[in-house]
């Protein structure tokens, strides 16, 4: 099993800074709104993955503990997808 390394924390920190700047840039630049929204959500997911995997040490845990943590987080995501589909079906989107 890999072990935590302070160098990885600094690399993750730099990436988090860059991704935050990119997110702010996407919100300000005049690009089609749908692309900006998709980009902001994708960047947020990437940042969450960095914080979870590197800072919260999920990548260094055993497979069972990792699954116990990650899988429950997917439930609300599925719920969100269901709500979006329902809204689209009702013509709200």
């Amino acid at each position: 099993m890999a072990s935590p390394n302070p160098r990885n924390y600094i690399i993750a920190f730099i990436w988090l800074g860059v991704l935050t700047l990119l997110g702010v840039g996407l919100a300000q630049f005049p690009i089609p709104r749908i692309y900006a929204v998709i980009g902001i959500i994708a960047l947020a997911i990437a940042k969450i993955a960095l914080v979870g995997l590197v800072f919260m040490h999920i990548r260094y845990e055993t497979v069972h503990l990792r699954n116990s943590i990650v899988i429950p987080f997917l439930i609300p995501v599925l719920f969100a997808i269901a709500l979006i589909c329902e809204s689209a079906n009702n013509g709200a989107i």
Partner: protein
Amino acid sequence: MSTSATDHLNMRVVREPHYGPTTPGKLGIWAFLLSDAFSFFGLLLTYGVFYIQTPEWIPDYLPKLGIPFTAVMTFVLICSSVSMVLAHDACVHKNHAKTVRWLGLTILGGLFFLGGQVYEYTHLIGEGLIFGNSLVGESRYASTFYLITSFHGAHVLTGVIYLIVIFINLIKGKYKDGNHTAIEQVGLFWHFVDLVWILVFAFVYLIPATI
């Protein structure tokens, strides 16, 4: 529960083959974080439904949220997350001075964020972003903004108090022997606060600001 009994719970390592060398305290904080995450997801999903259903999310007469200022607050929270993980690393390696320094910086980062939130609220309320007269509020934008950010702010405040308690114990020399479980647990909570803010910043601040 006495202090010695609590210490015993924190120190005992579960030798369960599937979960590896982890403490009951660590498993407990993960269970708490999952339940807390569902609370945040509930609020963000409600926000999403309101946002989709509302034709004009930010009416002209209400102030817009300050993206550059909040981006700085976000960066400070990320910095405090790094200092937190470095404090844990220093404690694992029994470097007391570095642990004190990094944990102190983490507390300062949390206090800066809270100060920033107070400043932002004062500024926005002054410009007219208020709940209105009804329970939910006349503006869904204002209601959801204050509900979500104040719920997160309460977590930051809790995290800062939690960090200060651990910091006092650290100064007293409680973790000098490399017992890092308490610092690891407060770290998990603090990173969770940072993780949730990433979502709040994206959904509440950035997406409504897209042109």
